[in-house]
């Protein structure tokens, strides 16, 4: 049961991380926030993305034997990146929701 919770946390962290990594590119930021002008704080986005990337690895390690956790993590990043790319091309508005924590940080 606790394994499932750790894995859900890992999926969430990987998705957040990949979303922020994508939004740190001007072109993708424009896709999600066409009315907001230029990208506000690229460094903060990137930093949060990398922190969450590491966090998702830690969550994976909590869930499984290390040999398995490393595979789960690498595969999870691939799927998260693909999902973010698909959201950007088909439903960019969805990424606004994922960015809510970021607005809190901005204020």
């Amino acid at each position, binding site marked *: 049961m606790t394994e499932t919770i750790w894995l859900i946390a890992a999926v969430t962290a990987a998705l957040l991380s*990949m979303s922020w990594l*994508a939004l740190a590119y001007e072109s993708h930021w424009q896709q999600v926030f066409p009315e907001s002008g230029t990208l506000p704080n690229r460094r903060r986005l990137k930093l949060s993305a990398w922190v969450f990337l590491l966090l998702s690895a830690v969550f994976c390690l909590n869930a499984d*034997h290390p*040999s398995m956790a490393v595979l*789960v993590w690498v*595969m999870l990043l*691939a799927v998260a*990146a*693909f999902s973010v*790319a698909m959201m950007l091309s088909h439903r960019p508005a969805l990424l606004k929701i994922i960015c809510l924590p970021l607005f809190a940080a901005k204020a």
Partner: protein
Amino acid sequence: MFNSLRMSMGWVHTWMGLVLGFVLMICFFFGALSVFDREIDRWAIPDTRFEPQPMPSFDEVLKPVYQQLRPDPVDMAATERRVVGSLPDPETLELESLFAYTTHRDPVLLIGGEFAIPNEPIDPTDDHQHVHGRATVNPATGELLNDDALKIGSDWFYPMHFSLNFNWMMLGYWIVGLAALVMLAGLVSGVIIHRKIFREFFTFRPWKNLFRSSLDLHNMTGVVALPFHFFFAFTALVIFASNIYLPVTHTTLKPLHEHHEKLEAARTGLPHEPAGVPAPLASVDAMVAEAKRRWAQRDMAGEVGFLSINHLGDENGYVSIYRAGSDRVALVGEGIHFKASTGEVIREEPPRSAVSSIDEFLTGLHLQHFEHWMLRWLYVFGGLLGAVCIATGFVLFVEKRKARHAKTGSQGSRIVDALAVTTVTGMVLAAVGMLVANRLLPADLPGKGQWEQIAFWSVWALAFLHAAWRSSPVAKARHNPAWREQSLLLGLLSLSAVGLNWITTGDHLIKTVFTDTYWAVAGVDLSLIATALIAFFAAARLRAPVSEQKADNALSRNKQVNAYD
């Protein structure tokens, strides 16, 4: 010949990728299906739809079953050609060794053994003097299951991805090995020719023209799953390196290998040869209990994955018991060996060395003995990303050349496009068509498995003929309608497979998901429905002529295109 590294790498990537891409499509797609091979077996053989169970008692259940085991007629015929004189009656041959193998996903148990033969080999260096036998057992009752029922998942889709089921001179293995090597070269050359590997990491623009949007998808599916693509191509080569691709121990180094085998036997105390003195078999269940006790003592409590007995009925006989590697990235291991006649421990294998651990991790990550359903699905997804990457590569090849070919009258892009249809939609049609045939053919039909294989190849061949027959528009720089037609057919076939499973077995999704949950069958049915939905969606998208589609999309996405180009 080329002005820059990028151009020369581009040449390698394009042409190697095209030639072996057709093979790689098969590896990736059937590899993805192999992740759930045991579950596909349950779908295809309804008699075995019960829960997975651990290795049963050897003394009470398995021992009598081995007495029913008979030499495989195919192996009898193959052995007959290698020995002097004719082989004795198979009923009289005696087992000299046996094994039993199971995993945490297997309701059924695979058993087998080697039968001794008295004949001399024609080639004196041929030391393979026995005939194999193999059977599938219901571990709950100890009864042998019908051997005519082909395990479509583990005996057809799974070997398809590493041998193309083309066993003549092991040629299938060699073609796949070459494809894996080219895959590695394709990944390296792909990274070199990719202009914006980070900037376009998340980029897919379906509203752009077919060439550009396919290139986006090709790059993105290749890059996001790059570690997966690399490690699976690489570990595929590692797995077969020592016994198939570089079999030095059985060719140039054979004498050394034989010598080492004898030295190792002396070192480990596991006899290399039988003593020639008959001896009884002590309780194997007691040995299993002792093995489990020792694993628990090493903080590795576990179940038996593999059990074997060598020199059966001989004074030198020994029983080897290996732990199933379900809880980590490992294969069966932690072997403990017992003297068969007394049950005393001869040898407990020491922990692995660093090199051996790395080897076990590399092969283990590919062979997936572990119990982790999420990672299994992630692997399926990785395999499908690989298939998308290669399929979009074919589209790129055709889109780049077809206008030029139309002008010059070349048939090149037309041929590639027809082959692409065959290996993309045609291959999935063959797999689903085989499942449909499995449900339509009566269960007691003699040689049912053979008929299913014929159905598989026939559907695939028909898909090729259809793709070739409909391909003439490509020579005029237009699209092959076979893409859409085969997608529609795939949607219909997938749904009918689900329906036929319901009609012939009574296992519908409400039952397998909710009332009498059985995820193996529910998972195959749900995947078939997902396949149907994707196929219908693709067919709908392919209906509108591309130029109109592009105009529509351009209008609706105008804002985005302006903002993001």
